[in-house]
């Protein structure tokens, strides 16, 4: 039936709004995955076994099943036990925790790679274990994993498309809605792909700047 992009402009508003949601979810989940990743990593390395073991199980579940399924369980499942999350929040939590688990793996190995001398240097000054961890070890570990964590952020952006299954009107769902009106799948999916690509480029540029800034400080 050929391509006809003339139908797309009429839906600019819908797509732009979808794009805004996608950006919002990506940012929200990205921040959650960053801090969550640090917390999981610290817990996995230093917490007592009755915290560590459930955490391992949790990480294993998150890494072993599709995100689609996790989002579904968080949104439709938690409310059965009385936790009512709006779809947007459920999406952020699902995506955020999923990637927090991945980030945590990165940070753990990076924490273990921090030179023992750093720890000794700080302890010798009189800093406590917690202070040393917070001010010396973790910042260095995190610096070292900014590039691979950046890759996770980029993956997160793309996986945010899955949040459409719990009804958040993000970019993919916006495209689908436009298609359900116009029956022009190719044009709208292409338009959506284009929007994702733009966000992706912006994200990559941001990460590159961040990496350069960190590189400059060492």
């Amino acid at each position, binding site marked *: *039936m*050929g*391509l006809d992009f003339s139908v797309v402009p009429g839906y600019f508003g819908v797509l732009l709004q979808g794009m805004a949601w996608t950006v919002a979810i990506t940012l929200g989940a990205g921040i959650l995955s960053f801090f969550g990743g640090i917390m999981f990593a610290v817990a996995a390395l230093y917490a007592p076994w009755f915290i560590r073991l459930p955490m391992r199980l949790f990480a*294993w*579940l998150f*890494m*072993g*099943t*599709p*995100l*689609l*399924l996790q989002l*579904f*369980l968080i949104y*439709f*499942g938690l409310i*059965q036990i009385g936790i009512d999350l709006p779809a947007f929040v459920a999406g952020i939590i699902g995506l955020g925790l999923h990637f927090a688990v991945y980030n945590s793996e990165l940070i753990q190995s990076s924490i273990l790679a921090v030179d023992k001398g750093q720890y000794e240097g700080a302890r010798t000054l009189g800093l406590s274990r917690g202070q040393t961890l917070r001010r010396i070890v973790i910042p260095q570990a995190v610096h070292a994993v900014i590039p691979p964590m950046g890759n996770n952020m*980029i*993956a997160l952006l*793309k*996986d*945010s*498309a*899955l949040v459409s299954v719990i009804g958040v009107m993000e970019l*993919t769902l916006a*495209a689908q809605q436009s298609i359900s009106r116009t029956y022009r*799948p*190719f044009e709208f*999916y*292409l338009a*959506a*792909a284009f929007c*994702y*690509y733009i966000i*992706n*480029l912006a994200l990559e540029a941001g990460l590159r700047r961040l990496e350069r800034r960190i590189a400059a400080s060492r």
Partner: protein
Amino acid sequence: MDIDLILRVYPFFVEAAWVTIELSVLTTILGLTCGALGAAARLSRNVVLRAIAAVYVSIFRGTPALIQLFILYFGGPQIGINLDAFDAGVIGLGVNIGAYMTETIRGAIVSVDKGQTEAARTLGMSRWETMRKVVLPQAMRMMIRPLGVNINALIKGTALVAAISVVELTYTAQRYIGSTYKPFEMFLLSGILYMVIIYIVGQGISWLDRKARIV
């Protein structure tokens, strides 16, 4: 929890898991092929090949796999590519993961110490001989683990083809949810099967990795 229902339908989930496995295997093969070619192109001396590979990687990593699948499956016919759902799933996911694997493979190759290439070239070996006999055998070991990560993502990614109606594990669950209104039982069942597949593949990758590291 409707155990009875689970017991009644689980054989069909196991069947569907085989579809997921078949998808995963074919996708892995296609992905590795694309990855190997992509890496070769990215490392070649030919500017055009390099540019093509760079664009391939950038676009396929820069947009969601779901959208790529939709474009291929629903949009393809508009430009004369008419694939059935399973084939579209394999091709879409394979080409997508191939972009990631391109970077994995390239990364492993460039991480081989430059001294290795110099030593081989100094002995008189050609670029290709050096690549085949000296660089690749070493890169191969380094790429097992990161490729394992790609494959793990890919297996979970096969759930996306449910959206283009391949009746694999996730879509089987969705269909049963439609008739039974029991989403948790169905997703539990499919979730367990995914974990089993991923666990086995993970063990396989670790085994390969250990074997490769013995030297």
